[in-house]
């Protein structure tokens, strides 16, 4: 592992010996890593490597069996949840409600009552805020963008995105990548779990390779498992 990549001076996230066990299956087996602010990290690996479990642990949705996560200087992840935006593989949206209705509701959870802001966020991800169609009738690409808008509505410092490019056409994926680089340049720390790492080839600052529940290497360039 390239030490220079993760021996950060001022890390925003510190993971120490993180273990997550589901019954007898260990999804994470002692993950330790540090991540600095304002970077875009692509977390890559085969199915079952522990990528999603790591992301859910960072989001506070999964309690570690052992080990600790420190984010923004605290191990109490609940206390920093306002600084966290989470986008899962499912959309986390109500299918019977429109995009604006969904966003208005989720904004309220962060004590934001600002329709203008909701509309701006929807526009920022390339959707039309006046669209009244229920989210259930959106295309997969539109749903992914709406889901990203939901994760962005409270302007978090850290973004955790699980498979944002899945079932998204190439053009939409490029647009999303462009948006992510803009967000990174604006100072946000972004973690993207993806099977389509090539999408982030020129955008990610670092590729975090996971295998069987551990981080096996961190590289600046995208390289496949077969690469030296």
């Amino acid at each position, binding site marked *: 592992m390239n030490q220079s990549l993760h021996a950060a001076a001022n890390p925003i996230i510190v993971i120490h010996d993180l273990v997550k066990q589901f019954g007898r299956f260990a999804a994470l087996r002692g993950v330790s890593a540090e991540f600095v602010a304002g970077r875009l990290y692509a977390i890559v690996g085969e199915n079952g490597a522990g990528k999603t479990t790591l992301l859910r642990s960072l*989001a*506070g*949705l*999964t*309690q570690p069996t052992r080990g600790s996560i420190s984010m923004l200087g605290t191990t109490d992840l*609940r206390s920093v*949840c*306002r600084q*966290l935006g*989470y986008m*899962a593989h*499912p*959309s*986390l*949206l*109500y*299918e*019977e*409600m429109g995009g604006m*209705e969904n966003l208005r*509701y*989720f904004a*309220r*959870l*962060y*004590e934001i009552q600002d329709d203008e802001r909701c509309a701006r966020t929807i526009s920022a991800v390339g959707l039309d805020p006046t669209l009244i169609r229920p989210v259930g009738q959106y295309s997969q690409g539109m749903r992914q963008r709406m889901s990203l808008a*939901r994760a962005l509505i409270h302007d978090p410092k850290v973004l955790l995105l699980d498979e944002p490019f899945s079932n998204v056409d190439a053009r939409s994926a490029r647009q999303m990548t462009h948006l992510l680089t803009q967000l990174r340049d604006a100072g946000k720390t972004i973690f993207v779990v993806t099977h389509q790492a090539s999408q982030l080839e020129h955008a990610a600052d670092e590729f975090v390779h996971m295998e069987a529940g551990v981080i096996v290497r961190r590289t600046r360039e995208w390289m496949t498992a077969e690469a030296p």
Partner: protein
Amino acid sequence: MSALATLTRASLSKDLRLEWRSKDAINSMLFFALLVVVIFSFSFDPTAEESRRIAGGLVWVAFLFAAVVALNQTWARELRNQVLDAYRVSPAPANALFLAKALGNFIFVIVLEAFMTPLFIVFYNLRALGAAYQLLIVSALGTWALVVNGTFFAAMSLRTRSREIMLPLLLFPISIPALLATVEGTTAILTGDYSPKFWIVLLAAYNVVFTTACLLLFDKVLNAE
């Protein structure tokens, strides 16, 4: 406190809007309760006096079973697309979601009762010999007792494999004191034989205890893995 009220209102209005569009809970509850009323009316042919004695039990058993249908659907919407995770990662208090769900269910069951009570009156030729306004108090307290525990146990059985069977298994035993008080209170008012006051006080006490317990424990239930 005001943040809790604001978030409860936001979640409640979202739930009411979703129910208004889908009518999943209301339709299934109404259909189920209607079936129970019709089956009961074919099964028994009581006199007016007998009706007053058994109607409390019949009415509340019908409402209990019908409410379970709605309670089972309470959290189903939150599981679709894992929307519950979006709530869990937000700073919104778990209690706001619980209160919104319980209030939503309370409204749905009250609507059901408003539709079904006239049918019961017609089918069983009912007329209260006691103070009829007290029926409103018994009904409100009995319904809250049912939905507050129902909402809690529906959330608890969310992650179980057979949650639709699990809910009645958990809910019915714990609801026995409340159901008994509601049936006895209703019978007392319909027959006018005795005062329903004791049962009303019992229901109120039951509600205070169980609402407090549910509010204290719901955060653990919501964030359980």
